[in-house]
């Protein structure tokens, strides 16, 4: 018997490490012959810590929310007495979270032990590489990727074969295959999951790509914020070297390729190819004009190809199963599957991999189980700071590059932040502008100053000082920033503002003209009042930090609006729901 504990970052954050230690302790104390292993994130982050019990190769039980305290119960009931601990078992509904998905990128996530290369090989790993090195030319590989229709999963959705072909056709004394693992979009964590849960699939993808373009070296540029990912990558690279998958004369084919890791230092703009290259060279991560494209002059002025983690993780599957099998999934122009990171006000947050073209509704309500506390669904934000908010009315939009772009948002790296009626859309726009303003590298005036000016206007609006003409001014600035910026950061930074104005103009108008925030989020625009349900218990008056609440004991209290600083403490303190915000 074998026990596997999910230990991706989200599992660890939920206490999986302590659960695992407790299981080992109990197993030892009971002298049981059971091994405890670790795996990456299976994707049901909302159920962590997750513990799988295997009998031979078969999964005997999947237990969820196994806190260290509950570990003993599994040891007692299941391991010692062979009885499944029913109350900890995953529900049929939660199982559907996984069974409704089609997993290619996440094929091994939460199943194999990411720190053992044998586990990856047993799961069919490195077969794609073997096939490439023994029976395919570089041209064959690129052709197969072309047939698959794979497009860059990092955000832009550029055809992968086209980039590879350009890098292949450019000459240089050496070439580089770079992996962009600087997952900077707030709200996206699929790359982290692959790095932590299945690092060899990335290495294999880079090896195949390196062979196709004729590169001798690969570099993984990974976020410093992902320490666990870096550790697991280091282990994977050294195991791949020991097993002859990296280094000289790989599998006796004469192909030489090695991979090293470079830790990023925290700059969103480094997701842009030329900025990433500058950072790899030890400089400030400032983008430069293209052309020349990296395929021509990249890292150290040599031909370089850059792809994102998820793109590479698709490659071994495509080679092993054939490009046509991948192209059979998805839509006419968006082939294959895409991983989405479902978060925000969603019941079942986590990683979801589905064929392209599935309606948004099926992802959010079908797999994600709908909105937390059954509140009303308002919008979903896709594409992070470069994307936009898609309103509830467009819930039937198929999730593919073309259709999402039509809404004004982008598929981007696949972050889906779900928002309910309590989310203020003007504040969301302000939030993203605050982000892009901080992350602008400062090279282009419009991006550096324009985002700052837009942020100031949005701050004014959310603080109740919005003026007539602000919306028009935001729109004017947005267009100019898009036109006047050199790289993707500036060109897309206004998108969150433009989409919220497009779909939620009334909220902007309410803020500006009526001084109201209908979501009751923007503090300056909320009025707290005490209603008849008040029993006169005096608790709120005692909690109020500015003494704005007056009233006799056992009589309804009143808030002095001139004194009130809108901190909301009275609302939190009230046991009778008598404090209302408007």
């Amino acid at each position, binding site marked *: 018997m074998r026990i596997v504990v999910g230990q991706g970052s989200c599992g660890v954050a939920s206490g999986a490490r302590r659960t695992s230690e407790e299981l080992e302790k109990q197993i030892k104390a009971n002298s049981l012959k059971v091994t405890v292993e670790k795996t990456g994130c299976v994707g049901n982050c909302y159920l962590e810590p997750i513990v799988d019990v295997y009998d031979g190769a078969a999964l005997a039980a999947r237990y969820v929310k196994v806190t260290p305290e509950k570990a003993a119960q599994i040891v007692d009931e299941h391991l010692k007495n062979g009885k499944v601990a029913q109350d900890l078992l995953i529900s049929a509904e939660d199982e559907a979270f996984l069974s409704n998905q089609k997993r290619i990128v996440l094929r091994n996530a939460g199943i194999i032990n990411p720190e053992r290369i044998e586990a990856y090989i047993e799961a069919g790993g490195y077969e794609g590489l073997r096939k490439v090195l023994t029976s395919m030319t570089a041209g064959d590989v690129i052709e197969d990727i072309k047939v698959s229709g794979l497009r860059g999963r990092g955000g832009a959705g550029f055809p992968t074969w086209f980039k590879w072909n350009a890098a292949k056709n450019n000459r240089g004394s050496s070439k580089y295959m770079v992996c962009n693992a600087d997952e*900077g979009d707030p*709200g996206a964590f699929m790359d982290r999951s692959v790095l932590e849960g299945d690092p060899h699939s990335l290495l294999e993808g880079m090896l195949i790509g390196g062979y196709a373009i004729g590169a001798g070296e690969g570099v993984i540029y990974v976020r410093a914020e992902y320490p666990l990912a870096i550790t697991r990558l280091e282990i994977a690279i050294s195991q791949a070297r020991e097993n002859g998958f990296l280094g000289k004369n790989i599998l006796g084919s004469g192909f030489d390729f090695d991979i090293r890791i*470079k*830790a990023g230092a925290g700059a969103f703009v480094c997701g842009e190819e030329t900025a990433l290259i500058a950072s790899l060279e*030890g400089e*400030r991560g400032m983008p430069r004009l293209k052309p020349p494209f990296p395929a021509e002059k990249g890292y150290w002025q040599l031909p370089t190809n850059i792809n994102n983690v998820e793109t590479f993780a698709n490659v071994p599957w495509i080679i092993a199963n054939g490009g046509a099998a991948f192209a059979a999934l998805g839509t006419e122009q968006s082939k294959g599957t895409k991983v989405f990171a479902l978060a925000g006000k969603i019941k079942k947050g986590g990683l979801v991999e589905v064929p392209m073209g599935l309606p948004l509704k099926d992802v959010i309500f079908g797999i994600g189980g709908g909105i937390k506390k059954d509140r009303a669904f308002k919008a979903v934000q896709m594409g992070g700071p470069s994307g936009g908010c898609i309103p509830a009315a467009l819930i039937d939009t198929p999730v593919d590059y073309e259709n999402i772009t039509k809404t004004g948002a982008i598929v981007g790296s696949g972050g889906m932040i779900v928002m309910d009626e309590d989310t203020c859309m003007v504040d969301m726009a302000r939030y993203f502008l605050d982000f892009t303003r901080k992350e602008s590298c400062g090279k282009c005036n419009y991006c550096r100053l324009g985002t700052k000016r837009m942020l100031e206007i949005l701050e004014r609006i959310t603080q109740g000082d919005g003026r007539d003409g602000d919306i028009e001014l935001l729109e004017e600035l947005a267009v100019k920033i898009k036109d006047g910026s050199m790289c993707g950061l500036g060109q897309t930074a206004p998108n969150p503002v433009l989409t919220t104005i497009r779909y939620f103009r009334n909220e902007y108008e309410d803020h500006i003209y009526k001084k109201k925030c209908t979501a009751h989020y923007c503090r300056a625009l909320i009025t707290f009042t005490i209603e008849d349900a008040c029993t006169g218990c005096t608790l709120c008056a005692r909690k109020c930090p500015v003494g704005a609440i007056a009233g006799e004991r056992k009589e309804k209290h009143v808030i002095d609006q001139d004194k009130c600083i809108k901190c909301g403490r009275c609302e939190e303190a009230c046991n009778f729901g008598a404090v209302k915000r408007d």
Partner: protein
Amino acid sequence: MCENCGTAPINDADFKELASVISTYGSMKGSLITILQKAQDIYGYLSLDTINYISAKTEVAPAKIYGVATFYTQFRLEPIGEYLIMLCQGTACHVNGSALIEEAICEHLGISDGQTTEDNKFTLNNVACLGCCSLAPVMMVKGPDGDETFGNLTKESAVKALEAIRTR
């Protein structure tokens, strides 16, 4: 900054650990960021002396090192407390009320983003995204015994977690 650039006398004995880092990476093209990361790992932050020392050993101008160090959010030019609180302000955390958590932590510790408590115990840093979006709101506390992540925070649980750390 400018008047001190490169002028402070350098005492090699103070930089023993860093010297071995530079002997490994110093001659490697493009490794300035790696050297700065290792230096920060050793000393907790990048002091002016550290920058001047790296400059002297690698022949990269201090102004350039300063430029790189201030470009990336990872680098700190001021010392930090024993525990670094990294409070996630990613989108999922924002939507789930990270601003309120920040308010509660700031009020409890009497500091704001980027500051350190008087007893040198805690430094608070707002960070972009920790990638644990399903557990939003989230904070990670980096201390002498490693990283600890706290998820599904409420105002109360955040303060309680910090108090538990303080009394360790």
